[in-house]
Each structure stands twice: as C-alpha cells, then as structure tokens.
C-alpha cells in the first residue's frame, strides 16, 4: 500500500511536472528521414517508402482510435455518517508511471477523507489537493524506477464520508486526466464517472411536520399532511381523535389524508408515529374546527 499525503495545489495546471522529470527522447527513423531526397533514391525504393509510410500512418490512426487507456471511477451507496471507499480502476494499454485527475462532486453530499494506491497500484504514492469545494485533485505516481504494466483493474481507492440526507446523490466526474508512461510521455486517457447515493439520513428517530389545510367552503373539513424525516420508509401511523386513518403517499416523505369533522367536534387531535432503527418518533397537533 503506497503512502498518502495531501497538498494544496495553487493552479489548475498539471502537477505531474513537479513529480516527474521529462526524459529526453530522440525518435528517429532513417527510412522516413531519407524519404524525399532528390536524386538519391531509386523510384522503386521511393514507392516502397511511400507504401511503408502509409502503413505506419494507418497503424497510427488505428492505434489512436482503438487504443488509449480508460480511468474508471467506481460507485457506491451507504447511510449518512458512513465512510465509503470508491474504487479507482485503470485499463491501461501502455506502462503507467503516474496518473493525475480532478474529481468533481457535490460537497454537500460527500466529504473526502483519504485515499491510497491499492491492488495493481499498491505501491503508488497518492497526493491530494483541493482547488475548491467538491473538487479533489488526485495524483498517483511511483517514486522509484518501477512502473505499472499494461493491464486492467483497481489501482487505488478514495474514501468519502457520506454527509447528505436520505436519497441525496452525487456524480463523481473525473476531469483533467493525465496519464504518463515511464518516459514521462503523456498517454491518451479517457474517464468514466461514478456516483454515490445516500440511502439513509442521519441516525435519529423519525420526526414529523403536521400541517392542516382547511377547505374554504367547509372549514370543518381539512386535508392533513404529514412530512416525515428519518422515516422508516413506510407510511407513518396516523390517528385522528383516536381513530386510525390510512394516509396516502404524496412522495417518499410526504403523506396526506382528509378529515370531515362533525358538528359536535370543536377540536381534532392528530397523532402520528413511525419507527426506524433508532427508535420510535411521535408528534401530535390539535386543530380547532369551527
């Protein structure tokens, strides 16, 4: 497992330049350099050179479109307060020395905790920084002479604390992707985004908001609404003057019912309750009818 450290990048430009020393690379190809010299090459040789150049071009174009590496950000879900590990995977068709990307997310839903290399990238050193809320710059690199060979699978993990309410979600979008090979050359890289869903709100018993809307044509008739937070996911138990009513669902956390108060009722007591893993929550409202 590689070491993890954090830093505060001051610019949006690549941080890999701080880490890697670009290697001097002098690619030469005699056959191409010789192409086109006047009077020095027989026609048949020139033709062969032309054909060879075409083959190389076609191969290069094919490589550009069919090849390239892919960075995949994993997905997950959990309850508010939990810490979730997001798997970072790389499908690389060239040897890898370093990787950088900016991960954007909704900072109201998750909070970055830590990260490290893992599995194929167990020896990677991880560096993190933030240029603003919901923007995490991540750099994975190998400090020694080693490299990660061609292949696919997990290279690291990022841990986030889930801070959003129930059903809050965020995408995890990688941008500014930079992948370098052992020669410090940039390698084509694309990214696929992940996501995180908060399946349960903060640990607490259910709480309620009880609202009554009177029919203006008969104010002894009202529609009741019960809004539930940290609910069990099913309709709360509702009684009106000790008589059970069956509320209907308006949406996941909002329920409604109708009540017709008789002429001899001066007040109506609405009582609601619901039970989740933390316990039972109750509330009541007295409605004056006239």
């Amino acid at each position: 497992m590689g070491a993890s450290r954090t830093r505060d990048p001051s610019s949006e430009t690549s941080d890999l330049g701080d880490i890697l020393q670009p290697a001097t690379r002098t690619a030469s190809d005699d056959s191409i350099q010789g192409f086109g010299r006047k009077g020095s090459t027989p026609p048949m040789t020139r033709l062969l050179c032309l054909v060879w150049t075409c083959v190389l071009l076609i191969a290069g174009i094919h490589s550009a479109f069919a090849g390239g590496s892919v960075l995949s950000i994993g997905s997950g879900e959990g309850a508010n307060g939990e810490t979730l590990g997001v798997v970072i995977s790389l499908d690389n068709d060239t040897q890898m020395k370093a990787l950088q990307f900016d991960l954007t997310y909704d900072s109201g839903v998750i909070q970055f905790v830590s990260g490290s290399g893992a599995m194929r990238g167990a020896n990677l050193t991880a560096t993190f920084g933030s240029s603003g809320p919901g923007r995490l710059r991540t750099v994975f690199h190998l400090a020694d002479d080693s490299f990660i060979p061609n292949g696919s699978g997990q290279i690291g993990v990022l841990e986030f604390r889930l801070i959003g309410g129930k059903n809050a979600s965020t995408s995890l979008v990688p941008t500014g992707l930079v992948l370098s090979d052992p020669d410090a050359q940039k390698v084509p890289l694309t990214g696929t985004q992940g996501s995180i869903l908060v399946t349960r709100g903060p640990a607490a018993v259910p709480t309620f908001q009880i609202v009554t809307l009177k029919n203006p044509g008969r104010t002894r008739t009202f529609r009741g609404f019960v809004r539930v937070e940290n609910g069990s996911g099913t309709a709360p138990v509702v009684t009106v003057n000790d008589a059970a009513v069956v509320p209907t669902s308006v949406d996941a956390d909002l329920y409604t019912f109708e009540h017709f108060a008789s002429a001899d009722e001066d007040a109506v007591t609405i009582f609601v309750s619901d039970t989740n893993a933390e316990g039972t929550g109750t509330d009541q409202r007295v409605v004056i009818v006239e």
Partner: protein
Amino acid sequence: MKSIFASLSILVLLLASGCVERERVFRTDPTDAAGFTDRGWTSFTAGDLTAAHADFVAALVEDPTYAEAHLGQGWTLLGLALSTSAMTVAGSSFDSAVSNGLDNADLRAGRAAALLGSGESAAAIADAVSARTTAPNFVFSHRSSFGLADLFLIESFAAAAEGDLEGALAAADRISDSGIDAQNSSSWVVDGTGYSSFEGATLAFLHKMSEEHAG
C-alpha cells in the same frame, strides 16, 4: 239572560274569527320556489344550514328547474358534508344549477370547494380560476367572509393535494407573498422558523394561510 248569552256567543265567534284572520294575515310560508329559495338563503346566511337545506328542497319540489334553488342546495350540502361522497353530491347540485341555466362566480366557487373536498383537484382549480376570472373582486353573495382569498386557497390546496407544492405556493403567494424561493434555502423561513427543505417551508406557509384566510 238569553240576550247576554247570545251577546257572549257572538263575541266569542267574533274573537275566534279575528284570531283566524290574524293568523292568516301573519303567516309567511312561501308559496313558490322563489319564496322558499329566498328564505333558504336567509337561513344559510344566519348559519342554519339544516333549515336552509329544507327550504331549498321545498323550492325544488315547487319547481325542479329553479336553478337558484339548486345553487343553494349545493352550498348547504357543501356545508353539511361529512364525507367525500357527500362532497360529490354537493357538486351534483351545482351541476344541476348549471344544467338549468345558471353559471356565475358564486356557483363556480361553491363547486370548486366541493370538488376540492371530493378529491377532484384539477376540476377544483379550473372552477376556482373561472370564478375569480368572472369576478376579479369576488365575494360570495350569501357569505361575505368567503371571497377571493378562498379561491386562491382552493387552487393552492388542490395543487398541494397533487404534490405540486411549487404550484400550491404560487397560488398562496397571491394572497400574501411568502418570500419562499425553492432555489434559495435561506428563504425557507415562516414566522421566524427555518425549515430544512422547500417542501417543509411551503407546507408551513400553506398552513398559516389556511388558519388566517380559509372561509
């Protein structure tokens, strides 16, 4: 003695005759549909819905096509309704008024309230909008406390019943500007109480409008 007896008998007969005449002069029972309907509205305005309903029924016995009596019957049934189905019956009375040639803001407003009570939200909104379009300064002819604000409440509450809280708030804002903005969480405040969601703040405001303006 005979003359005295005869005089007393004549006196008794005269008194009896006078009593009968007096009773005939002061009796006010209506004799036609219009009369029963007028008396029905008088009872309605006084809050005696049972008596009002009896008179509107009597008016329709006299003349089943008397639209104003159907209108009165609709309003009294609305006020007496104790179930969703009773609200539907009230709505039918308003429909009968329409089918007998009456269509005004009083009718649309009453039917809107009945439709709200019977759970027909879209139709309730349509009638409430029609009523305030017909009468921009609407006040119900037989209950001055029921006016334009109630039409906006019907629109608002019908939208809320369908889960359209943005639409509900828009209608309620026509009565009194809530200041609530779905996109601005700092505006989710009602009477000094902050809410964690737009939904919660909107419901609190609708409740407040209901308590202050309904009926």
